[in-house]
């Protein structure tokens, strides 16, 4: 079985600063970590590897040179192979561009059974890249996974929301985005840290030239998203309670619907 895990290196803080000129993140001076949900994605891949023979886990990440550390950490947790996608042409990519680049890299890797992504990154909070990769690759996707079972040629996942869940079965290949309730990520192994930094480490660096990617779809200037401002949305409740006998309530309800032009 071949598993690909997409990880992102993020600043270790929720107080992300944004460059107002470009609308992108300012990474300088902030300690970086592997995005927490992505660690759960990696852990699940490693658990599958632990429980099955001939399973290979490849970790990929797109990012500047320092993202190297995140990939080596993934190797130190037990991933077999790491691929660092880095190129000036990738800089400033939004989720569309990032999804395009990652999908192109995954096509090049080929022959995969499961692609794992974290639900969303703590810096951008979009939760878009995973689903976009699945769309670009034209494979099924199951998001918000908090329970997973590998069957013969398919998988069964529990897709969870705040107020309920679906149990979904899908053929492989499939892309899954996972939430932190899925598992507890393991510690790095000291011996693997040293291996991850040794010349024998299975570590590749790919640039735009190495993957078959449409250059008109990537990078800052080709990104359709323009960020004007970021803020935490406030959830407002506009509902109205109608009181009375059932008949009165029904009448007032219909009046309201007509008044609001909802029918």
């Amino acid at each position, binding site marked *: 079985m071949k598993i690909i895990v997409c990880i992102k290196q993020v600043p270790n803080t929720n107080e992300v600063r944004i460059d107002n000129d470009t609308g992108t993140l300012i990474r300088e001076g902030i300690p970086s970590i592997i995005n927490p949900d992505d660690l759960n994605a990696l852990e699940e891949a490693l658990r599958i590897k632990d429980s099955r023979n001939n399973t290979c886990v490849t970790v990929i990440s797109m990012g500047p040179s320092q993202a190297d*550390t995140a990939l*080596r*950490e993934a190797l*130190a947790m037990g991933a077999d192979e790491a691929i660092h996608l880095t190129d000036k042409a990738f800089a400033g990519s939004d989720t569309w561009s990032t999804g395009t680049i990652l999908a192109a890299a995954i096509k090049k890797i080929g022959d995969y059974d499961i692609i794992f992504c974290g639900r969303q990154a703590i810096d951008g909070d979009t939760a878009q890249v995973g689903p976009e990769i699945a769309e670009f690759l034209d494979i099924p996707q199951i998001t918000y996974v908090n329970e997973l079972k590998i069957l013969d040629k398919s998988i069964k996942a529990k897709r969870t929301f705040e107020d309920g869940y679906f149990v979904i079965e899908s053929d492989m290949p499939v892309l899954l985005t996972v939430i932190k309730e899925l598992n507890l990520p393991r*510690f*790095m*192994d*000291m*011996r*693997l*840290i*040293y291996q*991850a*930094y040794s010349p024998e480490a299975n570590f590749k660096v790919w640039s735009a030239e190495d993957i078959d990617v449409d250059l008109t779809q990537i990078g800052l200037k080709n990104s359709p998203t323009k960020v004007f401002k970021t803020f935490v949305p406030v959830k407002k409740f506009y509902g109205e309670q109608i009181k009375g006998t059932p008949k009165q309530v029904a009448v007032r309800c219909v009046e309201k619907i007509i008044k609001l032009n909802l029918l």
Partner: protein
Amino acid sequence: MNFELTKKQKMVKKAAERFALEVCEPIAAEIDKEHRFPRKTFESLSQYGFVSIGFPKEYGGTGEDKIAQLIVVEEIAKVCVATSSILSIHQSAANCINSFGSKEQKDKYLRKLICEGIIAAFALTEPDAGSDASNIQTTAVEDGDSYIINGTKCFITGAGQAEVYIVLAMTEPEKKTRGITAFIITSEMPGFSVGKIEEKMGICASQTGELIFDNVRVPKENIVGKYNAGFKIALTGIDYARILVIGAQSLGLAEGAFDLAIKYSKQRIQFGAPISKQQGLQWYLAEMATRIDATKWMTYHAAQMIQNGEKFTKEAAMVKYYSSETARFVTERALQIHGGYGFMKDYPLERMYRDAKITEIYEGTNEIQKLVIARAILK
């Protein structure tokens, strides 16, 4: 001169920090209170390679990196000195086999000790042989292809938890220090037993006790290093431990206590302002920070000397003496800054303060360290 950690060492630090916070800290108060040896923690330390750090790759280690070894002990000591003590004293016993053991001994024991959760202990001290380590009374008498060991050891870290003991015994008492030999004795050998387990003031979760050897038959191939070379092995092992056990854990302990003091002094409001605004308290913090910095770099430097294969007896004694004084000073000041809360068992400071005291005593009292330093500089 470069004081930067390597990328590998930085990653080790990150991993050790997470392990310390998620595994060691949550149970630190509990294992202290119950005097309970954290066996599961030790198994996890083995599983993730924290034990094997700095040991040869062929036995499942990471390869030589004494700084990384120091970092792990330091990070754990920030939250639980007892656990850091268990780990580092085991490592220094294992290192004895690594440095002086035969190929056969390494093949037989090293992987078990650094990867498989088997604990080793070093048994030198006796009721009448503390600082005067040459006065040991345990004897080893040749009998065919074996030696028969008789005697009692005391204050042995890991007593009863360890399965492999490196035991120093008199093979030729008339030769004094040149008549001492080191043996590997395993807990299942007939005639070996564990005596009294001590109740200590600090590092309560680390089990310390007595070992009794009653006609224990040990095959000759269990001699570590050369016959009658045990005292030298012991001294080398102790030098190593003064840096990678005492230096590392004293440093970590002081840093841990200091971090708590900083945090508390910013939060605690008295007379309408955080107590960190008081100049008297700022002076405490300044003194603590300065001593920690001095301790840190002398300890790292000494660990680098081990790594480089240099002679480090004097530096080891300096690290042992200074780092342990720093640990005592900083934990005491940190407790004082916490006021009444620091005195309560609900806060970690009182445990840290008790734990600090042992660093001035074990692996050679600080008075002995000054003797070693003076001898080296007057030579």
